[in-house]
């Protein structure tokens, strides 16, 4: 069994607990002064990578865990978090503040990074909670010609580079098997991410973090989609409260729902 060289892409997004507000110009969501953190699904990817090493789940062992992020200068903080959770080193592809990459560009960037890092396993989140596209992992697998397992809730390693993944699908779960190298995307039920402890946060400051640019990979930020506008969704008006169960039934009948 080959030793695992894991690449974990992480994204800096608006914290999941913050209610996003559309900006006045209707070009996007207000990000200035808003709390950001690691995309929750990426948190699961980092945790899973570290657990594979700690629990010695892969017969060939884990040689390297690289956390990767393409984002503004502040994305470094997210990479430091991944390093504090147990990733070995980081790669930061620095973008300008407010600059966004489309999933296809990220997938192309990751393909080149996989080749550079000689990764044989990429664990990504199933979606970022800002764009909600849910595409990058599958696109990367397609570009590399590797097998993919999306929405993983369980990952097991066997002999001969076999990886068995239980996936969350509509109506239940499905189990698939493939051989390394492969791409896996994480679902909520995969694990519970740890909190980075203070000593580990201190140690993470000494870990290696490479800075790169898109140009280093021979890529440009090519946009295939033009965002024409971003608007607030129609607001629902709460219809008020009723006193008792009869009131509830009465109102539902009045609204034609019963």
């Amino acid at each position, binding site marked *: 069994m080959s030793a695992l060289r894991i690449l974990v892409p992480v994204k800096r997004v608006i914290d999941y607990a913050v209610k996003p507000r559309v900006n006045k110009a209707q070009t996007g*969501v207000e990000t200035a002064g808003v709390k950001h953190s690691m995309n929750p699904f990426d948190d699961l990817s980092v945790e899973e990578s570290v657990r594979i090493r700690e629990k010695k789940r892969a017969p060939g062992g884990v040689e390297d865990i690289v956390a990767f992020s393409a984002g503004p200068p502040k994305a470094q903080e997210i990479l430091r978090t991944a390093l504090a959770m147990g990733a070995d080193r980081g790669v930061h592809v620095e973008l300008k503040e407010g600059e966004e990459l489309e999933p296809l560009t990220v997938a192309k960037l990751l393909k080149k990074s996989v080749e550079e890092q000689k990764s044989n396993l990429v664990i990504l989140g199933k979606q970022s909670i800002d764009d909600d596209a849910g595409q990058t992992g*599958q696109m990367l697998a397609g570009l590399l010609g590797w097998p*993919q397992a999306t929405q993983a809730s369980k990952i097991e390693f066997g002999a001969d580079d076999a990886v068995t993944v239980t996936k969350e699908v509509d109506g*239940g779960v499905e189990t698939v098997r493939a051989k390394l190298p492969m791409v896996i995307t994480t679902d909520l039920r995969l694990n519970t991410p740890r909190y980075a402890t203070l000593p580990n946060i201190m140690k993470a400051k000494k870990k290696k973090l490479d800075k790169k640019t898109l140009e280093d990979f021979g890529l440009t930020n090519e946009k295939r989609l033009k965002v024409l506008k971003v608007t*607030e969704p129609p607001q*629902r008006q709460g219809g008020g409260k009723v006193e008792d169960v009869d009131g509830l039934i009465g*109102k539902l009948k009045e*609204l034609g729902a019963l």
Partner: protein
Amino acid sequence: MLPLTRQLLSRRGDAVLGRSLRWASSRYNNSRSSALSTLAILEQRDGQLVHGSLSAITAGIKLGGPVHGFLAGSKVSSAAEQAAKVKGVEKIITVENDAYDKGLPENYAPLLVENIKKGNYTHVVAGHTAFGKSVLPRVAALLDSQQISDVTAIEDEKTFVRPIYAGNAIATVESTDAIKILTIRGTAFPAATPEGASTPIESGVDAKAEPISEWVSEDLAKSDRPDLSTASKVVSGGRGLKSKEEFDRIIYPLADALGAAVGASRAAVDSGYADNSLQVGQTGKVVAPQLYMAVGISGAIQHLAGMKDSKVIAAINKDPDAPIFQVADVGLVGDLFEKVPELTEKIKSS
């Protein structure tokens, strides 16, 4: 006075120019729309057509231009005959091969790529289901196209609307790709009904990709209740149910009385009260039934993302300040362990 007149004149000039530009662009669109054609990806399970996947045809028809349906698997003939009854489809393309039975993306993506290239399609549409989400981005990457996920509205052949940030913002995007790959939200495009038509069925190209992955097993929740994503009524339980036993005791009888599907919040799923596949929200299912009844659910933004397009929302919660009451059409503040059984009895006896 003069500057004002000039301003007015120039403004009118702009308007005239704008109109002619619009006219020119609509002519351009029209001349192009003759070349527009859509491949709608349909799903089958054990040889049965997945009815919800007919949403892809509804969206395809909305795009204008001819629509072809696509089905692959070992026993696709009866599913194809079903799909052939849908009006407005030019043909159904089938590929018979058991390599496609389980929709493995490593086999299915090259299959779609071959058929898309052969048919010169400008648009490819599939549902934003587990299948669509796993296969379509792989197809998009192979065709070098930036997919548009979870489309809720089609404005024209290149302009699409989709929710971002858990539905807290709505983005309108224009695609510049030659082949536009879309996954669509089923609740925004009602499944086309198979009735009356008899569309020709043709064989497509079998890409015969070398298998690099293997399907091992599946464990699907069996239920006689309506399917969560398409049910007209949904009863959902949250953390307030306190245990799996209470969830089963309180939620299921109400769902049965209403003929409703059962859903759950993330908290209820994480605590083991309900199966993962019942989760409603940003990372679970998106539903838009006639009636959504939220029981013991506070209404976090991630949950609202999955249900706020429901026609009528009712909420039962003991916390009068729970955010769910801000979106509910009717709210009842009270102990769900008392109120829900009472509600169930009264619905049953009415």
